[in-house]
């Protein structure tokens, strides 16, 4: 049985889709069988970021409504064999996303893949709550700024109350992915510090992705950053995040600070 991961944030534009694609690709590059599911019905982007926009025939809503089989809607990545995409519908209404339909699709994907990554839309409405509903693990994407942190806090509250795991009395595993981190701006005090964000959200840190032109360039090329340039700083940060996601105890380094500086950042984890 595969693991279902929801990538969510509350606020828009923080890097959910970029991170879903990068994490999915990084897992697949390690040989795992991965499907990335776009839940943003009406505003789909994941197909563009993954460079599959010309190959979309059927989508998630078609599958839910029984107009297409799951295997017909899945798009295999051209670069990594074990990476698949289930695109969202751009033309349908999000009302077509029914809880029963989503449950069926997720159950089928869990059987066939090691990892099911659900790219959540922004907001706290239907699409977002359905994307998180069946998750085993949540990755909360946050930028180091107050509005993003507050929205993430709201989302964490929903993860602890509105998901199947929470309703059955279990604890949802939650990780923080801090994106668009700019060491220079953090130095000047224009951004929240890593420790401040961790103190407010109090969930373990999965990784810090530096703000980088590489990310934008990769998106425009239609390639997850981990595939476009494996050696770039953001790609390395995503690869490290994936190792932590798989349970490895890898210390998190803050970009711009010296790695392993007196082991200061070893075990940087909030309760």
């Amino acid at each position, binding site marked *: 049985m595969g693991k279902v991961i929801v990538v969510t944030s509350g606020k828009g534009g923080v890097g959910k889709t970029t991170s879903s694609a990068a994490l999915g690709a990084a897992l697949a590059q390690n040989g795992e069988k991965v499907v990335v599911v776009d839940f943003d019905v009406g505003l789909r982007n994941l197909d563009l970021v993954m460079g599959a926009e010309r190959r979309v025939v059927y989508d998630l809503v078609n599958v839910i409504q029984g107009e297409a089989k799951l295997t017909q809607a899945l798009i295999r990545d051209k670069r990594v064999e074990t990476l698949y995409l289930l695109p969202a519908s751009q033309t349908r209404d999000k009302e077509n996303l029914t809880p029963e339909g989503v449950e069926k699709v997720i159950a089928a994907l869990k059987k066939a893949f090691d990892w099911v990554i659900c790219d959540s839309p922004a907001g706290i409405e239907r699409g977002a709550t359905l994307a998180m509903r069946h998750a085993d693990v949540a990755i909360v994407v946050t930028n180091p700024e107050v509005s993003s942190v*507050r*929205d993430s*806090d*709201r989302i*964490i*509250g*929903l993860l*602890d109350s509105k998901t199947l795991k929470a309703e059955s009395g279990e604890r949802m595993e939650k990780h923080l992915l801090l994106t668009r981190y700019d060491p220079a701006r953090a130095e000047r005090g224009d951004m929240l510090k890593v420790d401040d964000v961790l*103190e*407010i959200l*109090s969930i373990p840190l999965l990784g810090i992705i530096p703000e980088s032109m590489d990310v934008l360039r990769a998106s425009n090329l239609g390639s997850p950053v981990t595939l476009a340039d494996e050696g770039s700083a953001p790609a390395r940060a995503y690869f490290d995040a994936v190792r932590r996601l798989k349970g490895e105890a890898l210390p998190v380094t803050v970009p711009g600070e010296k790695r392993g500086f007196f082991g200061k950042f070893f075990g940087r984890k909030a309760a």
Partner: protein
Amino acid sequence: MLTKPRPIRLKGRSFLALSLTPELPFEDWLAGLDDLAARSAGFFLRRPVVLDVDGLDIDKADLRKLVEDLNSRNVRVMGIEGARPSLLGPDMPPAMSDGRPASDFEPPDEGEAGEKQDDAAAEPVVAARPAPTQALASLVVTEPVRSGQSLFFPEGDVTIVGSVASGAEIVAGGSIHVYGTLRGRAMAGTAGNGCARIFCRKLEAELIAIDGFYLTAEDMEPDLRGRAVQAWLEGHALKTGILG
């Protein structure tokens, strides 16, 4: 002339009501009630009474008749619990819900009025029924309270082992203790308890209030920000001070 508008204070208050559970047929039940009332005149006097009709197979006319029968016995019904909306008219007592159980009322003993007094004089007063001392309710939360969450606990004190996020809200009948940073709103003593206090390890609150008197972040003294702080009520003024 417009002066500074006085904010309206909205306060909750809870009263203990006597709950009556009528049984069918009402004639027999009312006869039992008459018997009880005869033993102790004025048992129902000045006591708010709530009628619990949950599970009774009656119609609107039956219920109206019952309320009238009770009225004629000086039993004033302040509300009706467990009734379908179709049973209640605009001239009837309002529907009530979310009742919480409390200790039972002691029905008057037979012949309590007269002969019992002599016995009571012979017995030591202490042995007469110790007053039930009920511990004050408290709620302990060991997780952070997230933005958008609202914790409502009118029964007593709330203790949070963790932080209260910006956009979260704690409402307590008693005091509020936050062993973490208070960034959201904390409202203590909401049921009219002016003795309640608010304690936090780090004050970054958006609003604090005790018994309806409040301070917003702007009104708080700037040097209290980020410090361990307590807040209490002195007369009609909400006071704040550094802890420890």
